[in-house]
């Protein structure tokens, strides 16, 4: 084969248009649906009799469906779209198997719909993070597998020599997630404690080996891209990637401290959780040293603002996670709202905010449209950022007291419930802030994609300094 024709960036983006848009918009639909479920679940925690007569809307069905739609709908679909687009740009190759990916995306949406009905109707598999029945889950995994095939083919037919660090993370994510999904669906985990082990191996890795690599790939792509300067250190990128691959894989059993599983398994996970400090600090240093000196750019670039917020949240939530795995800390915070908030810092302040930032960069480039309102983008950022800070602050504060009081047998158990009520209300309020942010985001995307209203002909927000940065 002769030398491959050089493709221009605009050609790549044009070929990515429909696939990436379809995945991102599907994700946004599930984001809105998952947000509604989140509000229902949150309000029900301090108003338990509200809609209390409807079995399909009971807390124990709405809450798992919230998690499943956010995880397998919003974060996975939008994440896959973002990852495929980044890959196309980095490998200078159009996204391959586009027709198959469109079909997979369609089937994926149908599977999510079926899974949602199944959970609300009471056919949950009953395993946290794996509530969709196995049949539904396997369909989703097969859809991802088609995208994995596309990833492998794109790397095979790439038009660049080097594989940038984001490519490593994306390749890893698309190999790890289908394996995770398939192993978790095997019928060999047929005794309760063994299944509990598989449960937390899976659930922790879904975050650590699927969303984290996609999120970090986006951070590694967008921070240097927006600032127009190379990533600080190749060596640190290498260390951060292999550190994550080596240690994150082993973290899951820190969810089972104090459980009837053999202690030595749990101890391995605690050790691995502490070792995670290495890749996390390395990645943080690498990103920080890249941003340092240009920090003011977050004022002008919506992408950078979301991405930097997300990258800082990743460092925070990971170091917090390593601490939470210590037995002395876990003794207090396990079984409390502290951990619920921790999970949301991971899936929201890190993963979701990263995806928002990526969308602000990608959608104008694949639609050749501009965002309609800089004020609304700022509203989106501040509503969601303040929302998640209130969420995490309120629940982690009261979670500590809940844990201390639970471990004090002189305090009646009911007191550990009633003390949390004002903070659960604060959580609902933060939920309304985030909901408003999501609605603004969805409205902006709809206006852009479906070309309603008057179209702006120039980028709005980054006018002032566009000569300096590729915003």
């Amino acid at each position: 084969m002769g030398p491959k024709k050089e493709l221009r960036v605009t050609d790549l983006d044009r070929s990515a248009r429909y696939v990436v848009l379809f995945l991102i918009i599907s994700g946004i639909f599930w984001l809105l649906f998952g947000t509604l479920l989140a509000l229902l679940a949150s309000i029900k925690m301090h108003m338990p009799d509200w809609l209390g007569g409807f079995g399909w809307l009971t807390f124990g069905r709405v809450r798992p469906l919230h998690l499943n739609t956010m995880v397998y709908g919003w974060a996975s679909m939008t994440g896959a779209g973002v990852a495929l687009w980044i890959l196309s740009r980095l490998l200078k190759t159009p996204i391959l198997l586009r027709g198959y990916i469109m079909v997979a995306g369609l089937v994926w949406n149908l599977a999510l719909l079926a899974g949602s009905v199944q959970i609300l109707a009471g056919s949950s598999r009953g395993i946290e993070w794996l509530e969709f029945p196995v049949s539904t889950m396997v369909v989703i995994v097969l859809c991802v597998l088609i995208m994995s095939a596309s990833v492998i083919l794109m790397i095979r037919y790439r038009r660049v020599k080097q594989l940038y660090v984001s490519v490593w993370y994306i390749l890893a994510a698309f190999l790890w997630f289908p394996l995770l999904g398939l192993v978790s669906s095997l019928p060999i985990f047929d005794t309760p404690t063994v299944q509990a082990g598989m449960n937390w191996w899976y659930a922790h890795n879904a975050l650590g080996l699927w969303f984290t690599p996609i999120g970090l790939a986006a951070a590694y792509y967008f921070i240097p891209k927006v600032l127009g300067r190379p990533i600080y250190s190749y060596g640190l990128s290498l260390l951060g990637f292999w550190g994550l691959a080596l240690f994150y894989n082993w973290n899951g059993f820190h969810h089972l401290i104090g459980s009837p599983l053999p202690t030595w398994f749990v101890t391995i996970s605690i050790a691995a959780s502490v070792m995670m400090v290495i890749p996390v600090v390395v990645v943080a240093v690498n990103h920080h040293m890249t941003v340092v000196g240009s920090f003011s750019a977050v004022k002008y670039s919506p992408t950078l603002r979301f991405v930097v917020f997300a990258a800082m949240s990743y460092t925070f939530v990971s170091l917090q996670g390593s601490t939470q795995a210590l037995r002395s800390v876990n003794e207090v915070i396990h079984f409390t709202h502290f951990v619920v908030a921790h999970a949301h810092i991971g899936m929201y302040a890190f993963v979701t905010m990263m995806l928002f930032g990526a969308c602000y960069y990608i959608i104008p480039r694949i639609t050749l449209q501009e965002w309609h309102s800089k004020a609304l983008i700022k509203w989106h950022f501040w509503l969601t950022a303040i929302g998640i800070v209130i969420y995490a602050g309120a629940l982690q504060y009261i979670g500590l007291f809940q844990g201390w009081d639970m471990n004090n047998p002189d305090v009646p158990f009911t007191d550990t419930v009633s003390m949390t009520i004002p903070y659960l209300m604060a959580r609902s309020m933060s939920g309304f802030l985030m909901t408003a942010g999501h609605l603004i985001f969805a409205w902006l995307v709809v206006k852009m994609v479906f070309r309603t209203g008057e179209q702006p002909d120039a980028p709005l927000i980054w006018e002032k300094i566009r000569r300096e940065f590729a915003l």
Partner: protein
Amino acid sequence: MIRYSILVFGILATFLIAMFGLTILPKIFIDEGVTEPVYFTPFEVTEGHRVFVREGCIYCHSKQVRPEGFGADFERGWGRASVATDYRNLLPHNLGTMRTGPDLANIGARQPGEDWHYLNLYQPRAINEESIMPPFPWLFEEVGEDARPAHEGLNLPDEYRVPGRKILPDDEARYLVAYLLSLDQQITGVD
């Protein structure tokens, strides 16, 4: 630059080794001790477990007691530390990770009365005003006061009564309570 082949090998190797360590190895170590005892779990208990899973009880109630000296589970009277055989091989597992409500590993010993459970499931606030547990009225039947004279309705406080009607548990409520009452560490496991 990382070679592509090394990258793929490393990605798969790190995953598969940990997968073996955290899923297959525990299976090898635990299964033997759990599958040997025969549990003779009654039909009502198996069905009750199904209802327990369906209504998502596990999102607020853990079912694992931590060992004495780690937390205050023992001091609270929630029972001895849970062991693998306590779960009667009922799937899915429900060890749980949250205690919005109290642990249920030993609830059958702590609340042995059926009526207490029926009341708590129908309207938790009838038992504890500060409870935030959801009500489960669809597990119950509302009938006329004179219907089925052999069965007494739930003993509800006045504010939750419907005049001229009485509340009876239907099959699913009976199964669920049978399951909850079976959660008694005195019966299975070691002391």
